């Protein structure tokens, strides 16, 4: 089959990345989780184009369509596949917009927390001694308080707002990243390539961020995945309690809270479906995270 126009495919080289992908694909359930997550994430990010209506454009809402059962049709001929809320808002659209808010908050706070935590962890591992003791004591103390309690304290003091909940989530999460990075950086620091970099008289910041950090990434990715799921759940909880996102940025938690008052009269779908969306999102991320942990764990490698 080989001729000048169609050269044979180059022999497959087993790069670390290819091996990683192959290992990851071994678990069907993790692949399914990844697929579900990609679909949910894409749908949330594209909500402005794909959702049947803009749930926060009041001109598109009709109070007469309020609390319609799943599958019923509105006055304008729109089918409410998952029902409508008390203001005649299509639940599918509301869930997609809510998911987008939840994702944005979780991902933003995750990245900031990872940046802060990674820096702290690297510094603690690299300098050791007093710096290490001090930073790790701070991590221990932070971890001895439950996340929801820290969030409540911060939000009670700071008040509501998207920026404030992101700040709260950063303060909650940085310690997990710091601890993880420190643990792997302590091992890396003693390796020969770091010594070689020292001999080249490279600046410390370059050694830390360009040499040590890339080798600490695998556990960081695992923690990051799990933390995104956790912060989506925590943000939803706080918004449900009314101390999280403001009413102008309705996340899934607020949607569920809005349905709470109708649940006793049997109008279940306003709370039920946003909760299912939340559950599907969290479970799919956790499945991916579990598999990543197994694949990236050097102790389990064949």
């Amino acid at each position, binding site marked *: 089959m080989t001729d000048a126009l169609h050269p044979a495919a180059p022999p497959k080289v087993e790069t670390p990345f290819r091996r990683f992908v192959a290992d990851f694909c071994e678990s069907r359930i993790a692949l399914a989780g990844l697929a579900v997550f990609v679909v949910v994430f894409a749908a949330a990010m594209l909500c402005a184009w794909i959702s049947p209506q803009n749930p926060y454009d009041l001109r598109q809402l009709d109070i007469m369509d309020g609390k319609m059962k799943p599958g019923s049709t509105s006055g304008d001929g729109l089918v409410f596949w998952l029902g409508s809320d008390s203001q005649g808002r299509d639940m599918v659209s509301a869930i997609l917009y809510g998911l987008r808010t939840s994702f944005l908050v979780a991902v933003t706070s995750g990245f900031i927390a990872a940046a802060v935590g990674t820096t702290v962890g690297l510094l603690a591992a690299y300098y050791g001694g007093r710096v290490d*003791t001090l930073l790790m*004591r701070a991590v221990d*103390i932070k971890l*001895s*308080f*439950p996340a*929801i*309690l820290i969030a*409540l*304290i911060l*939000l*009670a*003091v*700071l008040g509501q707002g998207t920026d404030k909940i992101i700040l709260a989530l950063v303060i909650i999460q940085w310690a997990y990243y710091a601890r993880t990075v420190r643990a792997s950086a302590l091992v890396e620091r003693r390796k020969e390539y770091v010594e070689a970099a020292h001999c080249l008289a490279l600046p410390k910041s370059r050694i830390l961020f360009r040499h040590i950090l890339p080798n600490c990434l695998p556990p960081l990715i695992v923690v990051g995945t799990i933390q995104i*799921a956790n912060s989506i*759940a925590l943000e*939803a*909880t706080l918004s*449900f*309690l*009314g*101390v999280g996102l403001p009413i102008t940025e309705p996340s899934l*938690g607020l949607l*569920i809270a809005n*349905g*709470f008052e109708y*649940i*006793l009269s*049997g109008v*279940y779908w306003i*709370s*039920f479906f946003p*909760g299912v969306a*939340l*559950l599907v999102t*969290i*479970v799919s991320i*956790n499945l991916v995270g579990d598999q990543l942990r197994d694949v990236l764990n050097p102790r389990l490698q064949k």
Partner: protein
Amino acid sequence: MTVFIIRRLMQSGLVLLLMSLIVFFGVFAIGDPVEIFIAADADQAERERAIAALGLDRPIWEQYFFFVANALKGDLGRSFVFNMPSIDLILMRLPATLELALVAVAMSVLIGVPLGMYAGYRPDSVGAKTIMAGSIFGFSLPTFWVGLMLILIFAVELGWLPSTGRGELGTFLGVQSSLFTWNGLSHLFLPALNLALFNISLVIRLTRAGMRENLPMDYVKFARAKGLSQRRVVLVHVLKNILIPIVTVVGLEIGQVIAFAVVTETIFAWPGMGKLIIDSINNLDRPVIVAYLLIIVIMFIVINLIVDILYSILDPRVRLGDMGK
């Protein structure tokens, strides 16, 4: 041991100081203390009296000492809504929260250990696989949503159990609790189950892992060789050994349960301190918020201290590791 406790006490003191500073600056530097401690409908004379009493006309570091001194005297302002000292208000609500948290912890052990033992004893059976799949959901399901669904199923659709409130209290040996009346128990069941769900899953996993680890051990073979019944081997010998890590973890989780009671109390309108804080945040009843923050921080510092000390008694390596530093 004594050195260890003294070090931990000093550390707790430091954390307490730090937290009091954070709360103080949150209230006094970011917010406006006059607005926080004095109701909006107070007249000018009342305002001035309160400002003088709280020391708000002093420099900021003196204000901090006033704040700490007032806190030590148990005087952190009066609730705008209930018109009583905010500390008394919170202490009044404390028993309801503790009751809920302790019942939830008891439930997580009583449900989690038998299920986990079964899942570890017959790991390939359908029952075990169902239990383990269920425990994954127990980890992933958001507590507040499960609470709503419990209300929807058991209170709205089936009508078996009441959905909100604390029910009647009974008194037994001078202790007031809803455990002593049927009505109280029926009100307690759903919120406690909701709060326990996460820990049930945790205990199931721990117990299963413990069973799988212990069953192939020599002492089990020896017990069988002695001619003991399988029942006695599993329920006495193995159970004793797997209980040690479970007790430790469950003890550590008590703090978490008390913190998460905020969510459960809000859903089930359980009159504990968690519901109080959420109501106070929504009503802008600020003296109660400040008092709650201080009390809960002190509570957690005490819990952490007790856990640390118990841990070092159970596992001497912790203590020795700390001394070596």
